[in-house]
């Protein structure tokens, strides 16, 4: 892999978890993502911001190959996680997704009990050898998601019966239970009320210790609150990427400035 210059470059830097190089995404004939290059650091929160339809969610979904499930979607360029190209034919998307978890816009608990929702991932990936281990994974995941106290007495109740905020934290716990290295969050708070949003944001901040988090958000305030680095997308192009502080206080690009000052979006 040494012949790839960008890898050497990446390894030269302090640390890089994910590096994307000239990523193109097509939906049929539509060129949805153009020439995106980005490096994402481990154990940090990176926020993707931009107006609707700018491609930030599409790009996020390329990181764990969720776009594979859409027939007409085509991805070009390379995305590397720990230096390994995830679009390499040798890579099994199933194994990749165990490493790169995902939380979606709308809370989507399975129509099962809370326990089974969390246990689902560990079960399919064979992470527990027995019931006791599974119980441990479930309880620790719920603890990490800050949900344990609220649900410990009703693990048998259906996950769909919880409040929206609880459902979303359940979905985060479900993602953690597989012990991924990266967690992708696609506007995780857009369906939640402000109090629930605050709880989720708090949780994201805590999770930063152990996971690399990429979050797509519609709200610039949220990006400013939770992320260390921010990337601004516009019309399928990555306009600017840098530390959150820089992007919000001292944007280099005119478009970024217009967006964060609310001139469009």
């Amino acid at each position, binding site marked *: 892999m040494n012949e790839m210059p960008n890898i050497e470059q990446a390894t030269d830097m302090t640390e890089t978890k994910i590096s994307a190089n000239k990523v193109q995404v097509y939906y049929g004939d539509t060129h949805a993502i153009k020439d995106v290059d980005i490096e994402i650091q481990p154990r940090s929160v990176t926020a993707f911001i931009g107006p609707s339809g700018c491609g930030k969610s599409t790009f996020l979904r390329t990181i*764990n190959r*969720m776009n594979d*499930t859409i*027939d007409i979607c085509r991805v070009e360029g390379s995305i590397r996680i720990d230096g390994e190209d995830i679009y390499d034919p040798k890579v099994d998307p*199933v*194994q*990749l*997704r*165990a490493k790169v*978890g*995902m*939380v*979606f816009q*709308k809370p*989507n*608990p*399975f*129509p*099962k009990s809370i326990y089974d929702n969390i246990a*689902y*991932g560990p079960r*399919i*990936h064979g992470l527990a050898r027995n019931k006791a281990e599974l119980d441990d994974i479930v309880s620790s995941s719920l603890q990490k998601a800050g949900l344990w106290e609220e649900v410990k007495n009703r693990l048998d109740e259906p996950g769909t019966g919880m409040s929206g905020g609880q459902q979303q934290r359940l*979905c985060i716990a*479900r*993602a953690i239970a*597989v012990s991924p290295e990266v967690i*992708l969050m696609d506007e995780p708070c857009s369906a939640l009320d402000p109090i629930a949003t605050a709880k989720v944001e708090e949780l994201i901040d805590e999770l930063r210790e152990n996971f690399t988090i990429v979050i797509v958000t519609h709200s610039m305030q949220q990006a400013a609150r939770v992320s260390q680095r921010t990337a601004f997308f516009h019309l399928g192009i990555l306009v600017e990427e840098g530390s959150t502080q820089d992007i919000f206080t001292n944007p280099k690009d005119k478009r970024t400035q217009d967006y964060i000052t609310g001139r469009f979006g």
Partner: protein
Amino acid sequence: MSLFWLILIVLAIAVVGYVLGRARAMSSAGGVRSALHSLPSYYGANVAMKAAVPALLLLIVWLLAQPFYVNSDISAMIPDSAISDGSSRGLVLAEVRRAARGLDNAVAAGAMTEEFARNARADFNDITVRLKEAGQIVTSEITQPVLRAAQRYRVLAAAGNFYMTIAVILVAIVGALWGLRETNAQFRARNTVEKGVRVILIAAASIAILTTIGILLSLVFNTVEFFKLYPAADFFFGLTWSPSFSGRGGSSELGIIPLLWGTFYISFVALAVAVPIGLFAAIYLAEYAGSKVRAVAKPLLEILAGIPTIVYGLFALLTVGPLLLSVFGDNGIGIMKAGTAVMTAGLVMGVMLIPFVSSLSDDIINAVPQAMRDGSYGLGATKSETVKNVILPAALPGIVGAILLAASRAIGETMIVVLGAGAAARLSLNPFEAMTTVTAKIVSQLTGDADFASPVALVAFALGMTLFVVTLGLNIVALYIVRKYREQYD
């Protein structure tokens, strides 16, 4: 005058009324269209509606009521002594009607004059001889009172038809005149017509209710009649089915249990074929197949549902039956005696139900929100794990509903079992033996030569009632489950 001509005359009166109404409206407005409240055609339509609708309604009511009146009149003519043991008034009345029809036919064939057929003083033997000569079936049960009643029946029916014609035409003309009388420039013809149309629309919608009532009445009345002749407990709990067509079915054993067993056994085999194949086909089409495969395979599979059941029946009788016989028959394993068997009918019915299960399940699987799939794929589940652990549990109520609907189809299916399952009612576990079903027996009891009023024929209505109740129950439960399921994801 035949019914057809009567209807035609009423319609003709309506058309004439339309033309007159339109002309009268125009003339009342002095030929100025804008002076009319409504368009001229509405005035015509108003007259036509008032001529035709009440007249046709009267016609329908008369047609329904006349048999009641005639029957009660005839019934009073028959002394109790004329009703022999083991018979009933209903049976004798049926006899009367048959004799009357025989007389009609004899007159039509020219074997006797109308005068003669009506002459109540005519010699009894002479009439029966002449009827026989005219090739009309005259059973030995025809007695003097029956024949007299039959003659009276004919007189009443003819008079009824005569008065009906007069009354209907009269009503049509009066209606037309009424419509014409109210026609003037200020009359709100459009509103009146629209009100009338609305009533017609409601009447059309009510036909669904009338059909259900018709089904219920025809089943209930005849079932009650049957239970008068045959004890209900023996019917519901009897383990033997052996109708005897001789002697009014007095020695028949008409237990439904063997028929229900055959019905459920065959349905079970059919579902055992259709559910796994249909379900896997639906899963493949919904989750795996590309749009091209889907566009080809789905309609092709649905062709199976569009093929008439008679084709499947023939396929069972002539192709599948002999094929199974060659494998399991005496030349093969030796557990099958004839081509018609539970297995034959069940297999073919299963094939018929595949598209039924698959397209219903396909709809239901597609109704599971994409977010569920995303959630599962996002955790690194494979497609099959997602299907088994997330989609199927989520779709389960809907799929159960679909299977219940398929079961109701299987239980009510007639042609395949009539041709493919055999005619012998038996309680056996061997799927390669011939058995029979409720539907097959409804057909055989009502198409045989059995007297319509005898228990061996009437039992078909009790069977029909059972079938109706069972399938209706299944449908209601299934539709309820499916609706609840749809609401969950709407």
